[in-house]
């Protein structure tokens, strides 16, 4: 009997009192359009394509982002410049499908595709949610300032032969017996 009263009335009264005290606690709400919330740098928002420190496109059109994308919102076509660099001929992200999961960023071997803290991308026309490469490509390096894929990769391009990349050994001469 006593435990029933304790459980039904007393504990409820304690709860009531604790919730009542919340009346004098400052609200957590950020009144968004008037007051901008602090966006964390790693927030997964609008997707961009970045450039390397030399100002070239980072994307090498490997299609890994398109494969990783769970909603298939990325479409691209590989092309190749005369000096041997790969680049996407077109790069299209349908943001009306994108779920901002960030898998593309994790899949990207060249840090080209990155997610930014911008989330205000509502449109009145659905077609306007489809972004082309010129919309996506930015001039800067995004989150990774020093990384340059062609500088560290073994891929041969004009102005950088085999073995000239950072931390890369000279190519082994398979016809020689010398160590």
């Amino acid at each position, binding site marked *: 009997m006593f435990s029933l009263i304790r459980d039904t009335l007393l504990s409820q009264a304690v709860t009531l009192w604790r919730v009542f005290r919340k009346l004098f606690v400052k609200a*957590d709400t950020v009144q968004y359009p008037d007051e901008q919330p602090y966006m964390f740098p790693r927030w997964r928002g609008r997707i961009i394509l970045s450039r390397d420190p030399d100002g070239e496109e980072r994307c090498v059109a490997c299609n890994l982002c398109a494969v990783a994308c769970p909603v298939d919102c990325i479409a691209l076509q590989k092309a190749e410049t005369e000096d041997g660099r790969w680049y996407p001929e077109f790069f299209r992200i349908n943001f009306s499908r994108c779920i901002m999961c960030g898998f593309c960023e994790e899949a990207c071997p060249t840090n080209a595709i990155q997610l930014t803290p911008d989330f205000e991308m509502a449109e009145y026309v659905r077609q306007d949610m489809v972004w082309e490469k010129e919309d996506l490509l930015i001039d800067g390096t995004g989150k990774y300032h020093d990384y340059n894929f062609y500088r560290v990769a073994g891929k041969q391009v004009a102005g950088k032969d085999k073995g000239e990349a950072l931390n890369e050994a000279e190519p082994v001469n398979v016809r020689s017996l010398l160590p």
Partner: protein
Amino acid sequence: MFEYAVGSALSIASILLVVIVIAAMLIWVERRLLGFWQERLGPNRLGWFGILQVVADMIKIFTKEDWVPPFADRLSFVIAPAIIMVVVLMSFAVIPFAPNIGVIDSNIGVLFVLAMASLGAYSVMLGGLSSNNKYALLGSLRAAAQMVSYEVFMGISLLGVVVLAGSFNLREIVESQADGWYIVPQCVGFLIFLIAGVAESHRLPFDIPEAEQEICAGYHTEYSGMKFGMFFVGEYLGLVLISSLITVLFFGGWLGPALLPPIVWFALKAGFFIAFFILMRAALPRPRYDQLMSYGWLFLLPLSLVNLLATGAVVLAAQ
């Protein structure tokens, strides 16, 4: 009685209007208070502190499509939301707001309120039954059992006050509290009435008939537009009614120090209880259906009977 009612047609209309406006305002008050209690702000953008949110809600609810499902029983579907409004508004007829404000000075006021409360059960039952929807039916089954059960304790817990005052007239009950509010001798009755009142107006934590997480919206799953609005406003009217009744029966109605006019005292006390009910909604979890039932029949019913018996014995001994 007949000529009394006709004579005060103006006062009836004004009381009706004030009560409905207050019930509508409660939509905003509740959302705002709930917000504060959950460390949010609540609706604050429209008008002064968001007070025009009520108007926005009304426009929305009036312009929504008023849809009757083709599989529903049309007559009962339409009549159900009207019943709750009518019944609760009728109950306000016997509430004495102040010495000179009130519709009827009835010598069976308490019984009238109980009768209207018991008729209110039809609203939820018919609404659920006529919707022809399994969640609505579940909701109305729960509502029926809950309301019929808690009516019993509600009535018995009131009788303690009636015994002390020696009258069923709410006005006389208030006047007999001039020496002391009935909350002191009837604290047990007050607690039972509070719990039964929440269950009777099926507000949280006893909103088992509509329990959104379990059965959609219970009996008003199929309702939309103004018909839903009537259930909605009916619930708030019920809240105002229960708060006014608590004020009248246990807290001396309009009585209070003379610095403020009586109607202000009444409004303050009733407002306190309205806020308390909203606090209960913010704080307390919903019990399970069988917990509610066994709590009522096995704990509240014996307690209210003992309370009535003890009150009667004390009154007899004092004579």
